[in-house]
Every structure is written in structure tokens, then in C-alpha cells.
């Protein structure tokens, strides 16, 4: 996969710190699977976390803390008779699929959220040529995640955005003033960015989109659909 668009550095930093909300973190995780550049960037940011950990003060542990941990270790099946050599080769085999730098059916991070493959998804039509599939997140999530499907050749009307938005292309490609976005690319958009994307692939363009809150998506939708449906 040839990746040309990566998340903003501030998004990488927040991911590493663990402060991105669920929808955004899912998208970054999907991208990391196929982008070694961003994996390195995340690891650099994680060094900051490690450095804070080393410099941290020490909290008193509860009585017999290590002893309790050792008891857990001896009942963990994984820890029983584990020989490093065999466990290493075992994990190698079981991870073969995961080691593939390409996504197989779906990006790993998305697999736990979807019960079907992309081809079997039930799409809900929003407007001619535009449909979506909302993805259920944890109850306390402060963000919203959905698959968007835009028909080939479709030109979206010019629209702005409200709050932080991340879009990851899973299939097909679109073009706007920021360039061409194809499979694996991320559009990391902020407030007050206006664009007019057009699908340029031979197939429909499917992306995974994170917005800050469901209402933000509705307002975005309003702006996208207004010229189409004439409301």
C-alpha cells in the first residue's frame, strides 16, 4: 500500500498519550497496522510516556502485592511450562495473518467492531450516491464512528467541518484540494476546513469516519446534503 496522507503530529501524540476518544483511536490503530512511518512516530511519542513513568514518584503498594501477582502467574496457563523457544515460534505462527502489512479482510482494529465483511454490510442510504453504516462504540464514548460509502464519480458539494474529524480510506479514492486520498490514507481535518471531495476511483469509495459527537455528524450531514436534497 502506498500511503501519502498521515495523521497530524498532534493526533499521533494524543494517541500515544491515550487521550484520543474511541472512534479516533480506532482509525489511528487501523492506519498503524499498515504504516510503519506512523508506528515509529507513535513509538517516539511513547518514549515521552516512558520518561514520565521513570521520573514518576512511587505510590505505596498494597500489602503482599508481588506475592499476589506471583499467584496469578502460576495459575496463568500461558505461564505454565512455557519455554521461551516454543512460545516464540508459536506466537509467530498464530500471528502470521496479523504480521501481514496489508489489511486482510478488514483492518485488525475494526474487526472487533464489525460482525461482517465490507461486502456484506447493510448500508443505509442518506442521499443519492451516499450511504453509511454507523458503528456502535462503548457507552461512554464521546465520539462517533461510521463507514461511509460514496458512489463512484460522485462529487460532494463544498462543505465545512465542525470539530476534529478523521477519515480513513478503506476502498477506492477521492480527490479534493488537499490531494488524492486512496486506500490507507488518512484525512485529518480540523474546524473551519472547507473542501469538495470527488470520488475518482472505478469503484465506490468506502471510508471510516470519526467525528467528535453524533450531533457533529448530523450537522456535517446537513451541510453535505443540503444542496442535494434542497432542504
Amino acid at each position: 500500500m502506498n500511503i501519502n496522507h498521515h495523521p497530524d503530529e498532534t493526533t499521533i501524540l494524543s494517541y500515544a498519550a491515550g487521550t484520543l476518544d474511541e472512534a479516533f483511536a480506532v482509525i489511528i490503530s487501523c492506519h498503524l497496522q499498515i504504516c510503519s512511518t506512523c508506528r515509529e512516530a507513535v513509538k517516539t511519542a511513547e518514549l515521552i510516556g516512558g520518561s514520565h513513568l521513570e521520573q514518576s514518584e512511587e505510590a505505596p503498594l498494597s500489602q503482599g502485592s508481588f506475592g499476589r501477582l506471583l499467584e496469578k502467574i502460576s495459575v496463568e496457563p500461558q505461564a505454565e511450562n512455557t519455554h521461551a523457544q516454543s512460545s516464540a515460534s508459536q506466537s509467530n505462527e498464530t500471528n502470521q495473518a496479523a504480521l501481514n502489512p496489508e489489511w486482510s479482510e478488514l483492518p485488525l482494529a475494526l474487526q472487533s467492531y464489525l460482525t461482517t465483511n465490507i461486502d456484506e454490510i447493510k448500508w443505509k442510504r442518506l442521499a443519492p450516491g451516499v450511504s453509511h453504516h454507523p458503528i456502535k462504540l462503548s457507552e461512554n464514548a464521546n465520539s462517533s464512528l461510521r463507514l461511509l460509502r460514496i458512489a463512484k464519480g460522485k462529487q460532494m458539494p463544498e462543505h465545512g467541518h465542525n470539530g476534529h474529524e478523521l477519515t480513513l480510506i478503506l476502498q477506492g479514492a477521492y480527490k479534493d484540494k488537499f490531494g488524492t486520498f486512496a486506500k490507507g490514507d488518512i484525512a485529518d481535518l480540523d474546524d473551519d476546513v472547507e473542501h469538495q471531495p470527488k470520488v475518482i476511483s472505478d469503484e465506490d469509495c468506502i471510508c471510516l469516519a470519526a467525528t467528535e459527537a453524533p450531533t457533529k455528524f448530523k450537522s456535517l450531514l446537513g451541510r453535505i446534503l443540503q444542496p442535494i436534497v434542497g432542504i
Partner: protein
Amino acid sequence: MYVQYKSVPTRRVDVTKNETTDHHKLLELIALNRDKKAFEQLFIYFAPRVKAVLMKQSSDANTAEDLMQETMLTVWNKADKFSKYRGSVSAWIFTIARNKRIDGYRKQGTKHYLDIEDIELTDDAMGSEEILISNERDKMVTDISNTLPIEQKEIIEMSFVKELSQTEISKKLGIPLGTVKSRMRLAYEKIRKSVEEAL
């Protein structure tokens, strides 16, 4: 014999630079020999720190103790995967604790943070030179972080120690989100540059 173990000292002698090299060594002993003594040494150093960091992030002492235990259990179970992460031991343990904290409130069965060591291809043991470079980077990140202008340092600490989002930081400090981002970017670029130069 380990059941008799009573309590873990919560104070320790000051950190010497050699200790980071030792952390690599300890982790290797755990991975190769399932060495419980090595694990105990790693525990003595990291467990009180992991717990302190978790407590700063709004966990009460009991939750922090539980999450710390889960973190250290994962360190034991995944010690052989560390070579795939290819980084510093403290950064790796930080990511495990971070993911445990996040797992605590996510939807059952879903996983939105990726374990990098699960997808990396390389799994040769880190050579002594690589460990040296890794330690050098570690030291640099600490040095650079400590010399950042106060307004950048503050934002980095709010992100990594208090785990506040960009929006939360902007509200708390009463500054525009754009300012939070530009300070983050400046800090990160400085750190990234120093890390790349250590190559």
C-alpha cells in the same frame, strides 16, 4: 516459596543510568528463563511508579493497584514480545498500563488500541548496540522534556500524566485549541528531532 513473600519496599535508592540497561536484561531473563527473581526486580522498580501514574489519572488506590497488577502480569506474559516493540522498557510498560486503563472502560470485546508488538515483523533479540541506542534516546527524551519551555512542558504533562484530551487542556487552560495544538507540535518536533539524531 514465593507465597511467603511479605511486602515490597516502596522506596529505593536513586536511579543510575545503568538501570535502564538492566531493565532490558531483566526482561530478557523473564522471556528466556521465566526468571521470577528478575521479574521481582522489575516489579520493585516499575510497580510503584505505574500505580502512582494511574492514581494521577483519577483512578482510586484500589483500582490503580488492580490495573498495576494487570499491567505487570502482561509484562510477564508478553516479555518475549518486547523485542518486537523495539524500544525502551519504560515506554513499553507505559503503553501496557495505558492500554489497561483504556480497556477498563471500553465496550466488552472491542479493542481500539493496537499492541504494536503484535504487528511488527522483526523479532530478533535487540543487540547490545541497539539497546545502547535505545537507552541514549531514552535519556535524550527525558533531557529534552525537562528543558521544554514551560508552556509546552505543561501541555505534554497534561497529555501524558493527567491524560487530558486536547479539548480538555484547552478548556482547563482557557486557551484556544489551536494554541494547544501548536504547542504540542513544537514540543513533539523537538523531541522527535533529538530522537532521530540519536540514531
